[in-house]
């Protein structure tokens, strides 16, 4: 796997030995998972490090302020992850690159002054959704032939994507917003606003989650024998 990286031969050998000594030390994790994390870390590192270097240089030349640096970095991570998940041939890699994007988004939320939201983002997306996706992949045994060819209407898709992004950004940019300044949100008020003013949507959301739960179970579950015989017995009332 490392051979394929564009590295000078000695550095590659060093890395291989460092990470995969013959004795190949093991993280106390199932074989499958540790390779995934290692690879993920490697890829992320390979992608992020050059951008980081550039940004640091700019920071030093104090063109950028600290928050801007964080913003550019985060947006780079987001866009990189998004493109990865959309373009990569290997289905598993695509799914994993989604995680990168979502974590980038969490950084953005931090930047925009709502730590709670960043936390929720990391927890819900980083944890829950990713695991779910992996389970999905595993159950639809996408892992044994992960290479997925692209859909027939790729050029149209490309056109639409560009058009949408273009129009939206143009329109949103030339809307005169009056150069507002961001402000952080106190956690306590957020709680009050969420549970008192928007109590009703909260309850509806809870119903939505319950329905999603029941639905998923009802659909995905393999039928119990006694269910099917019920139908057979179905009394023609």
């Amino acid at each position: 796997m490392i051979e394929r990286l564009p590295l000078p031969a000695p550095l590659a050998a060093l890395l291989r030995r460092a990470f995969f000594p013959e004795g190949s030390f093991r993280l106390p994790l199932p074989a499958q998972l540790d390779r995934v994390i290692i690879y993920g870390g490697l890829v992320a590192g390979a992608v992020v490090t050059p951008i980081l270097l550039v940004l640091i240089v700019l920071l030093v030349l104090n063109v950028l302020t600290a928050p801007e640096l964080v913003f550019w970095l985060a947006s780079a991570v987001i866009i990189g992850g998004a493109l990865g998940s959309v373009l990569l041939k290997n289905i598993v890699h695509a799914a994993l690159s989604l995680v990168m994007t979502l974590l980038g988004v969490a950084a953005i939320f931090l930047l925009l002054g709502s730590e709670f939201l960043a936390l929720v983002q990391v927890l819900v997306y980083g944890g829950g959704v990713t695991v779910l996706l992996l389970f999905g992949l595993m159950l639809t045994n996408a892992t044994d032939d992960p290479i997925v060819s692209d859909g027939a209407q790729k050029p149209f898709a490309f056109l639409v994507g560009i058009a949408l992004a273009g129009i939206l950004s143009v329109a949103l940019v030339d809307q005169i917003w009056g150069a507002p300044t961001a402000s952080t949100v106190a956690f306590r008020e957020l709680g009050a606003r969420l549970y008192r003013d928007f109590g009703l949507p909260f309850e509806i959301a809870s119903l939505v989650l319950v329905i999603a739960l029941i639905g998923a179970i009802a659909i995905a579950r393999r039928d119990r024998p006694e269910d099917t015989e019920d139908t057979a017995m179905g009394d023609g009332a």
Partner: protein
Amino acid sequence: MAGDIPMENFLVLSAILFGIGFYGVLARRSAILILVSVELMLAAVTINMVAFAAYLDPERFTGLIFAIFVITVAAAEVGRALGIVLRLFRDRQTAMVDEASDLKW
């Protein structure tokens, strides 16, 4: 914290993310990857919401609440969608979307 970053940046970022997400939905054949792309689009929405809340609506920050709800719904969405994808897989042994085209015309 991010006082001096102009809001347009965030909006453009979310626009681009939205565009990529839409591309993903149109181009991908695997159901799960389409789900992934939908998640991207929803993330773009949340960025938008939070940006507007932070910049324009600091005292009532409704956008933030909106973002929270969007995230919960997105999560529920993935869960139930995967249930249906599994059902599809069990019926047709494939998760490719364009195989599932019995219902037409």
